[in-house]
């Protein structure tokens, strides 16, 4: 048992080196497949991060009348906060609203002058409500409308409704499209790999029939090919990671500026995960392709 395992290992390694051309071709194809899968993983992460950032920028603003009492505002705020759909409620007091306003308009002398002439702070307090999902804004808005609270001056949901709807649509579409793309790419990668390995093993067809004739068992014939498949996967995984490294190093600062996610940092912090996924997929691809390709030559 151990002897034949050792012999299978040795035959696998020797076969890998002596069929260097075939090994290189297989490794090349699996590397491309893994590179595509790795890139898709990182693009998907970019999308997820930027989508969640976009989502966090969407909110419903409730403007209170300046005369609203603090108790009434607090009561409404906590009832909104209690809604299951609500992720976060940010309260901005009248004073903070005024300070913000001053800061935004500090270069606009007319507005500043007008503000100075007013004896009172003309701005009311506001709350910004963020939902867990963009689709939930509708029901939060409904809740707020139903309150018919006299202290509410304006709810800007209807103003934002159009852009919120549009964003919801885009987010859904992008997520679905990236999922479909990933599936299509993975299927393509698997088929190309399978075909390459099948061709590689086709050249060994004669050898397999000879091995059977001298009385080698199926396991003894299959073993070295399976080991070669695994080796293709491991080498390809390592090469794909080595290719991804400089590309992400280069892209990192650019994506950090645009998407607020540095893909290189993501790559480094999640290296174990990405390493595991790529090597795992590579090994599975090589192994399954070898087993399937050789199965047809082992039938009597």
């Amino acid at each position, binding site marked *: 048992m151990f002897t034949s395992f050792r012999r299978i290992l040795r035959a696998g390694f020797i076969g890998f080196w002596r069929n260097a051309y075939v090994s290189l071709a297989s490794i090349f194809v699996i590397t491309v497949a893994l590179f595509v899968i790795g890139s898709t993983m990182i693009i998907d992460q970019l999308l997820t991060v930027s989508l969640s950032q976009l989502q966090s920028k969407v909110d419903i603003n409730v403007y209170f009348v300046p005369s609203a009492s603090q108790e009434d505002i607090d009561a409404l705020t906590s009832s909104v906060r209690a809604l299951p759909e609500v992720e976060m409620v940010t309260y901005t007091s009248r004073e903070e609203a005024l300070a913000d306003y001053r800061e935004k308009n500090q270069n606009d002398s007319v507005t500043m002058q007008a503000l100075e002439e007013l004896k009172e702070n003309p701005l009311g307090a506001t709350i910004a409500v963020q939902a867990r999902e963009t689709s939930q804004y509708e029901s939060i808005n409904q809740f707020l409308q139903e309150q018919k609270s006299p202290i509410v001056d304006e709810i800007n949901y209807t103003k934002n409704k159009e852009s919120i709807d549009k964003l919801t649509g885009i987010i859904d579409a992008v997520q679905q499209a990236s999922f479909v793309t990933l599936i299509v790419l993975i299927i393509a990668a698997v088929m190309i790999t399978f075909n390459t390995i099948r061709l590689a093993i086709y050249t060994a067809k*004669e*050898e397999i029939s000879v*091995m059977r004739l*001298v009385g080698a068992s*199926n396991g003894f014939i299959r073993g070295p090919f399976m080991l070669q498949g695994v080796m293709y996967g491991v080498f390809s995984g390592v090469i794909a990671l080595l290719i991804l490294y400089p590309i992400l190093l280069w892209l990192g600062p650019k994506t950090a500026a645009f998407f607020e996610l540095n893909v290189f940092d993501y790559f480094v912090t999640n290296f174990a995960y990405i390493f595991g996924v790529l090597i795992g997929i590579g090994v599975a691809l090589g192994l399954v392709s070898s087993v399937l390709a050789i199965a047809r030559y082992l039938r009597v």
Partner: protein
Amino acid sequence: MIYFDNVSKRYNDGRSAALEEVTFQIEPKEFVSIVGHSGAGKTTLLKMIIAEDKPSSGQVFFESLDIHRIPRTRLPQYRRKIGTVFQDFKLLLHKTAYENIAFAMEANGRSDEEIAENVPQALALVDLTDKAWNFPNELSGGEKQRVAIARAIVNQPDIIIADEPTGNLDPIATYEVVQILRKINDLGTTVVMTTHNKGVIDELGRRVITMDEGRIIRDDATGKYVL
């Protein structure tokens, strides 16, 4: 030790029969030559013995074992009792002469010590000790066939099946190969060989089975090549 009992083989087209009601037997330690024109059924006959092909009707026995009832998973064990030699050598091209012979022993589950001892002996028997580490494409036709014979005998099989072993060889290589087969037979192994070569048959002076259109038409104990 091999019994053919009324064996027929028809291929799918239904018209031609590769074998037609063939009945004969081979005794231990015999050297049997099978002759006949191309398509007479010689190779089909050999394929029946190594379980590469199944008869349409009739049975083939190896001693008391019905060859075509051996479960597929047990076939490798059965094939290890038989050494095979082919016209096209069927060596493993990515293995050296030594490794080709050693592979047959490894497949048999022999120990490393046995392999280290028996492979050089087999190479010496076919006079190829100095070519042990050459790959098949570095060997001549005769040398390749001698490697194939060494591989066939290294597991000490009960029987050697040789399908046109001299078909691709020049006269000198043919002579060498036949001498080796004869030596193996003298050492006690049954040999079944198909051939087209009249000189080989006449020189051997052993049993000759003559086939034509799937039937055995002559079976002579010390035959000549008659066609």
